[in-house]
């Protein structure tokens, strides 16, 4: 019997000492100044640049490069910088665009960048018809004129240089990768021309990028040689990692923690203009929101200033229409509804709805605390004027699918939108153009006059920007008159990172951080 006790105590002491030892003598975090850690909340699903259409841009933008870069940091007007294309020009009739590629550029797998390679990757992206392929709608043919000259011909005049700067479906990848296809990409492979190559992908744990020595842009000593994307689902954990210095950037932050973090000297919060805006789309065909006056009551029962200043705690401005302030085409003079419960009650009376009909359902993404607080506040305000609101939070896939089927569609659904490339038409067509089978037009808005105005604008955009703006702003006024949605927030993009990192200048056109531009000042560890 004693033997059993001895074994029992021996194992106990052994295990305890192993645990203690590993707590104190684990390898010190060997993070040197040239490694940067980004805490992201989701793993990569599609590695194929032709298919990727959501979170992947965070990583792919550092591996691949488009022909042209859009620099959205210079305020409203449009600035295009050369990327893989040194220079480019368009024919008189606006139908043929010629791009002169940079020489001496190699892909990560050693192949050289040629016009043929560029043609092969763009052709593949278009024919695959996945992700953001539709931006090349206007293109009729792509020709490799000579080793470094690429011609793109369109069927109607379109801003191909602007389209080539898109963050989706515009990356150039090596011909060998194109051969390998989606199967090859999804095993965690990549072959682009960008500053970093993919070193390791530990599914559901982390993604590691490493410096590509032969990058055409060249390297300096203090630049970052290794980028680690750590998958951290909980935002509270992300905050802790940032505070502990185990992460340099975080992607999921609760609005209310930003002010607390700003006071921390080791953390820096940059606010940059972003083309993202949030609105609640009102279902114009489902009772009771099919009643215009009822919709008007709703848009006047939303407390715009409190939501922007308190719920979004300063990380959003009150929206003025669907086109955000930071993009060309925004109409500063547009006169939008204001929070006025009295007016809302009047519209409610005019709507003629009986008390038991005044009941709406509101769907929103459960994970977003901003939506939840805003919805609860709206629910509270509506209750004061006799409208009962039922909240249906859920994951995006679930609420989106319910919204697309008229029977199960809610009366209001949350929507945060950002353009594939810098054009107001992206909102106007994507969200409100008449669609037989609604994809994102979850307001079920079908107004021929509106569609006609938007189409006209698109035609003029490439050649006569001013004319296009007049059309777009007229279309926007219709949206306000028909109270199609509650436009309530132009989101200010916030980037939280360790203060010792410099060169953080996020570009609203690309949902990512260009790690190539970063430098670390005095080492803090």
């Amino acid at each position, binding site marked *: 019997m004693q033997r059993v006790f001895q074994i029992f105590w021996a194992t106990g002491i052994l295990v305890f000492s192993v645990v203690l030892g590993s707590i104190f003598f684990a390898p010190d975090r060997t993070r040197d100044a040239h490694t940067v850690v980004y805490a992201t909340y989701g793993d990569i699903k599609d590695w194929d640049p032709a298919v990727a259409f959501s979170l992947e841009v965070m990583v792919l933008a550092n591996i691949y490069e488009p022909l042209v870069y859009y620099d959205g940091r210079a305020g409203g007007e449009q600035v295009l910088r050369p990327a893989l294309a040194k220079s480019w020009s368009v024919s008189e009739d606006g139908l043929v665009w010629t791009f002169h590629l940079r020489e001496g550029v190699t892909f990560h797998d050693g192949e050289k960048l040629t016009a043929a390679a560029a043609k092969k990757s763009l052709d593949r992206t278009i024919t695959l018809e996945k992700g953001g392929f539709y931006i090349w709608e206007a293109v009729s043919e792509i020709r490799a004129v000579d080793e470094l000259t690429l011609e793109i011909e369109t069927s109607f005049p379109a801003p191909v240089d602007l389209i080539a700067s898109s963050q989706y479906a515009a990356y150039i990848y090596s011909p060998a990768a194109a051969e390998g296809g989606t199967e090859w990409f999804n095993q965690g492979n990549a072959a682009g021309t960008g500053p970093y190559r993919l070193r390791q992908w530990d599914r559901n744990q982390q993604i590691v990028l490493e410096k590509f020595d032969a990058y055409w842009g060249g390297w300096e000593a203090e630049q970052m040689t290794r980028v680690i994307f750590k998958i951290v689902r*909980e*935002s*509270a954990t992300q*905050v*802790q990692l940032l505070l502990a210095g185990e992460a340099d950037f975080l992607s*999921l*932050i*609760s609005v*209310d*923690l930003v002010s*607390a973090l700003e006071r921390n000297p080791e953390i820096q919060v940059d606010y940059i203009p972003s083309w993202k805006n949030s609105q609640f789309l009102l279902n114009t065909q489902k009772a009771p929101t099919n009643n215009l006056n009822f919709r008007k009551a709703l848009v006047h029962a939303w407390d715009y200033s*409190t939501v922007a200043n*308190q719920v979004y705690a300063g990380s959003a401005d009150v929206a003025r229409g669907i086109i955000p302030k930071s993009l060309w085409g925004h109409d500063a003079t547009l006169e939008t509804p204001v929070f006025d419960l009295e007016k809302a009650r009047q519209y409610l009376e005019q709507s003629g709805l009986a008390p038991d009909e005044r009941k709406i359902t509101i769907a929103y993404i*459960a*994970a977003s*605390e901003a939506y*939840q*607080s805003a*919805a*609860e*506040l709206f*629910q*509270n305000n509506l209750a004061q004027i006799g409208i009962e609101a039922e*909240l*249906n*939070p*859920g994951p995006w896939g679930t609420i989106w699918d319910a919204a697309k089927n008229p029977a199960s569609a809610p009366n209001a659904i949350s929507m945060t939108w950002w353009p594939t490339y810098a054009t107001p038409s992206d909102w106007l067509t994507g969200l409100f153009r008449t669609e037989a089978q609604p994809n994102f037009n979850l307001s079920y808005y079908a107004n021929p006059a509106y569609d006609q105005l938007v189409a006209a604008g698109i035609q003029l955009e490439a050649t006569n920007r001013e004319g296009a703006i007049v059309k777009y702003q007229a279309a926007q006024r219709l949206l306000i008159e028909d109270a199609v949605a509650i436009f309530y927030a132009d989101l200010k993009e916030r980037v939280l990172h360790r203060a010792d990192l410099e060169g953080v200048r996020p570009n609203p056109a690309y949902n990512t951080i260009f790690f190539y531009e970063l430098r670390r000042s005095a080492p803090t560890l």
Partner: protein
Amino acid sequence: MSAADDELTLSERAGDLIKHNRLFVVGLIIAVSFLLIALTASWIAPHDPQAIDFDTKLAAPSSQHFFGTDVLGRDIFSRVLHGARTSLLTGVLVVSMALLIGLPVGLIAGYYGGRVDMVMMRIADVFLAFPPLLLPIAITAALGPGLYNALMALAVSWFPWYARILRSSVIAVKEELFVKSSQAMGMNPIRIMLKHVLPNSTTPVIVQASMDFGYTILAAASLSFIGMGARPPTIEWGLMISSSRSIFLEYWWTAFFPGLAIFILVWGANLLGDGIRDLLDPHYKDKR
């Protein structure tokens, strides 16, 4: 000859228990106080639990707000009080629904035995093959989140336990001679089951149900925590913790007090469950 305590009646044993089992008394006090809170929440709560007031957003615990305020400036103390109502309702509903489904299954399977028993128990096995929380999550995912769907899901994944416990005690009681003599009289089986078998075989089920009361509250809170349980405007402790999860490290009180409330209520329920087991299960008292 048994020692000093000969055959005590139920009330004598209860009095005995209260005098001697301190743990049971603590449990009783907690359970009763939560019951009172749940009943009188709307009167004794200092503030309206739903009132949104951004000026006092995320205020630390103070004389004005005992447990501080949440991200919308609502008084957490009042919300915890109202949350008691939801949690007690959860416990009662889930356990009673599970009993409602489980008892008939257990009774019929135990009494008839043979193929009927085999089929019913295999069905129960299927439900029991799902590790806990897996089945409720799958059902709530199918029905869509919401408190009542979550409670239904929990009840459906819970009834097999009661069916199994009742079945084993019914098999024992079925062999009792008073059942045999009723059968010999040609009494119809339904009457035998309801008048003779069921009243004498429910003790172990009641004991288990009283132990489960606390656990169901925990399970419902966990469901809300991962977004499958209660939804606003329902005030539920698990939901309160879940919605303040990201700011909890900075504003600790937003999650701490609801968590503490769950802990105390469930702890009280478990102590009460222990006591009830002693009360109803005579030969268990010397195993205390």
